[in-house]
């Protein structure tokens, strides 16, 4: 069982979270994601980009984590966006109506440019 593996970087006030795991199915990983994103917004982050270029499979437990974080971001007038989302995962986001809440950028550089 692999825990959540992320690399974090702050660039010009934008916090980038790059997820390294290719497969995100385990509840423990989703709990870690919820905690990580909660800490981000509770510590005052206003712009967060989640790069999921490595992720090929993701369960709806993560959609739940992103929804919880999205609510926190909204309360704090912060922005949470995604980039490099695989087509099937994007389909899942859209089917669950999450595409309406979060902006998805094709590349990290495009996300950073738009969130400047």
């Amino acid at each position: 069982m692999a825990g959540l593996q992320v690399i974090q970087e702050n660039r010009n006030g934008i916090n980038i979270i790059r997820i390294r795991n290719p497969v995100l199915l385990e509840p423990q990983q989703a709990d870690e994601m919820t905690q990580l994103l909660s800490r981000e917004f509770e510590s005052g982050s206003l712009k967060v980009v989640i790069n999921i270029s490595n992720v090929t499979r993701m369960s709806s437990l993560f959609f739940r984590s992103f929804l919880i974080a999205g609510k926190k971001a909204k309360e704090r007038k912060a922005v949470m966006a995604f980039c490099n989302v695989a087509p099937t995962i994007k389909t899942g986001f859209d089917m669950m109506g999450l595409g309406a809440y979060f902006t998805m950028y094709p590349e990290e550089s495009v996300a950073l440019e738009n969130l400047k």
Partner: protein
Amino acid sequence: MMNEFSFEKKATVEDIEELSNLSDEALKKLDIPETARQELLMALDEAITNTVLHGYSGKGGLVKIVIRRKDDLVTLELIDGGKKFDPTRYPEPNLNVPIEERQIGGMGVPLIKKLTDGMEYHYVDAENHLILFKKTGG
């Protein structure tokens, strides 16, 4: 021509990824087109997760997965001896609300419904039988 793969394993939280990988291997052997294969796998991942977390309350139990392909129709059957649960009666969440009003969780079953072309549920001899159908389009 009918092709079929099946396997049975103990399903705990630690086994979710392995069950998913075994299912993916079977779907690949059945030569299912890429998009349909990935959507089926996503649906099956949700069903396996529901069984492990809710059916067996995370304590583990046997899960049998049967994957069949006949022409352009793929059938996935997941059989478990966990708590009786009929996902076909699960209510649809309201997706058209602002994020502040959106209900958290409960997305697994609705996602399965949207990713597949049909779903059946039977409770036979104290076992849940969840059957998912998808046309491969290829």
